[in-house]
């Protein structure tokens, strides 16, 4: 009796010795400009070659500007980093989807979109949100730069086996409640380190009911609960999404693959080390108020009071967070005004997210005091949104319409919050300074971000008057 995680693990086990970490094979290695240069350098210094360039794919996302990309970058160090990736890819024979390609985008949007991500694969990237790819039933996790070098040289990783954590989300998501709210609700329940040392498998009717985009949003933030990876067993929704994509198997190979993938599920009696149950029917839109992703409340709620803290340690974190976030305890969430809205990131910048935001924005204008920005997850999504008329709805409403990249999710480029600015953001981390030193981030879904941009403060999207 084994779990989906166990099955993928066993399929990739190259070698295991008593008392040592296992050696597992890596099917797909995704790289970007920030965490790869030191790994290439290490390879070069040791005189080693890159074992499987055919299993290695690169794009550029973290440090690049999202406007005027054809001009020289303002940041010379970022420009050098991008140039270094280009040189390294050329030298070692890695396929690079550069800024002039329509496929270019955030690495975790790019992989699935190109059909590189398949069920049952092992996938790594020097980036913690590699967990996104788990939505396809692939074992996908973030690694450090030393491990990037290790995969370059050996196509394997030394890994200790993780424990199994099942999170079952049963029921039907109420109107206005999205995949983002599901994962914010889960992290709120299990806590930020709640899944440390574990791989989460998400199960239940609410998860089954999600689109691939929604499943990716959920798996993306597994790391915010501390998990090594998140997994959702593949099904018809998965196959439907993958079929016909550039790197998906074709013809007879497709039939064979689907046959194989269909068997990738946890056995009925398989044991999990940990279990949590979420009632989908009781979920509401969530807004984070503090500086860790588990510090969220329902939109109808208020900033918690000190007396709500579970212990003295949490109380002292609350005090730090009130101060950093500039919030008084007991402030109703709907009373919190915003200066910026950011719709983007590998959590929520896929076509479905942009469609949802446009539905809210249609016929409205962004509040006069708010600067709102939409950054599609890939250039292909950008193009599709323009063809569907979504871009026009958003720009008519006053949203800025940018080129693909990580942008203000981590603010390595010039898309940055000023100190004290408050932002409704569809990204995944609200850490201090994440979106700019002194910037205040509230994590929400795309519809909640769009509604807040228009209202100028957080509002309950379930009461929104849609204009069609």
């Amino acid at each position: 009796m084994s779990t989906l995680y166990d099955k993928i693990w066993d399929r990739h086990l190259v070698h295991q010795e008593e008392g040592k970490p296992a050696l597992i094979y890596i099917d797909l290695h995704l790289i970007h400009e920030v965490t790869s240069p030191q790994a290439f350098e290490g390879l070069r210094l040791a005189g080693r070659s890159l074992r499987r360039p055919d299993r290695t794919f690169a794009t550029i996302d973290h440090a690049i500007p999202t406007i005027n990309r054809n001009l020289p970058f303002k940041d010379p160090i970022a420009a050098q980093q991008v140039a270094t990736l280009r040189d390294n890819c050329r030298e070692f024979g890695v396929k690079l989807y550069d800024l002039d390609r329509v496929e270019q985008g955030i690495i975790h949007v790019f992989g699935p979109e190109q059909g590189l991500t398949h069920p049952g694969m092992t996938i790594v990237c020097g980036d913690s949100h590699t967990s996104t790819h788990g939505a396809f039933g692939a074992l996908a996790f973030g690694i450090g730069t030393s491990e990037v070098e290790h995969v370059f040289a050996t196509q394997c990783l030394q890994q200790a086996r993780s424990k199994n954590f099942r999170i079952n989300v049963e029921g039907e998501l109420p109107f206005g409640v999205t995949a983002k709210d599901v994962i914010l609700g889960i992290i709120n329940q299990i806590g930020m380190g709640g899944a440390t040392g574990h791989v989460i498998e998400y199960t239940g009717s609410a998860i089954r009911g999600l689109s691939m985009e929604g499943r990716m949003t959920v798996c993306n933030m597994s790391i915010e609960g501390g998990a090594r990876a998140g997994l959702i067993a593949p099904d018809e929704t998965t196959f439907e999404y993958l079929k016909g994509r550039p790197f998906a198997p074709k013809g007879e190979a497709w039939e064979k693959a689907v046959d194989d993938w269909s068997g990738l599920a946890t056995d009925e009696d398989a044991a999990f080390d940990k279990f949590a149950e979420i009632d989908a029917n009781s979920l509401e839109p969530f807004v984070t108020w503090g500086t860790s992703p588990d510090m969220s409340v329902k939109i109808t709620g208020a900033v918690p009071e000190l007396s709500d803290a579970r212990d003295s340690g949490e109380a002292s974190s609350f005090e730090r967070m009130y101060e950093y976030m500039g919030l008084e305890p007991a402030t109703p969430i709907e009373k919190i005004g915003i200066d910026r809205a950011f719709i983007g990131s590998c959590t929520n910048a896929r076509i479905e997210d942009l469609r949802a935001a446009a539905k809210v924005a249609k016929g409205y204008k962004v509040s006069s005091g708010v600067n709102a920005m939409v950054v599609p997850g890939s250039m292909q999504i950008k193009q599709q949104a323009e063809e569907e008329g979504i871009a026009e709805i958003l720009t008519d409403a006053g949203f800025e319409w940018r080129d693909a990249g990580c942008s203000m999710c981590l603010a390595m480029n010039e898309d940055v919050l000023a100190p004290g600015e408050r932002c409704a953001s569809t990204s995944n981390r609200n850490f201090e300074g994440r979106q700019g030193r002194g910037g205040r981030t509230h994590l929400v879904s795309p519809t909640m971000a769009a509604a807040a941009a228009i209202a100028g403060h957080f509002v309950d999207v379930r009461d929104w008057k849609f204009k069609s």
Partner: protein
Amino acid sequence: MDKFVTFRGTVAPLFRANIDTDQIIPKQFLTRIERTGYGAFLFNDWRFNPDGSKKADFVLNDDRFSGASILVAGPNFGCGSSREHAAWSILDHGFKVVIAPSFGDIFYSNSLKNGLLPIRLDNFLVEELAARAEGSAALQLTIDLEDRLVSDDKGRLAAFEIDDFRRYCLINGLDDIGLTLQHEDRISAFEAKMGR
């Protein structure tokens, strides 16, 4: 990688929960392509004002802790992104050990690969160490990796757990890639079996 030898050092206390890698090394320093020199940016936004002057109330700006080589931190230390720059900056600043009740998984593994020893101890012990370090006299600890012991000048304080293999690699300064490449024939056989 440097070999990890048993040593004695001063403790710097930073007992906050969920210290994430964005705090350890803010993203504006990630555009560099080198592996070294990150110590100057460790905890940048906590350590320095926007004009570059030092914040008086931050522990690493306190002269008592200037030569500290053991960092004592709160639970879930190093959570967040996979940036190995976090481990590099801590090492480059002069720390050899981080003691905390728990660590983010990726940070934990990144640390070991760079010769930085992450030690998990019970929450109350860590809190107590932090409190003692805050006290007037500098707290010195001895870390014995061979016997997995943390001691102060009066003697043994706690035993810690670490995977045998990881400990062996740290003590001997072994390179993971070299070890894996010893299994080249197994990797090739695996690739042949899966057909590509």
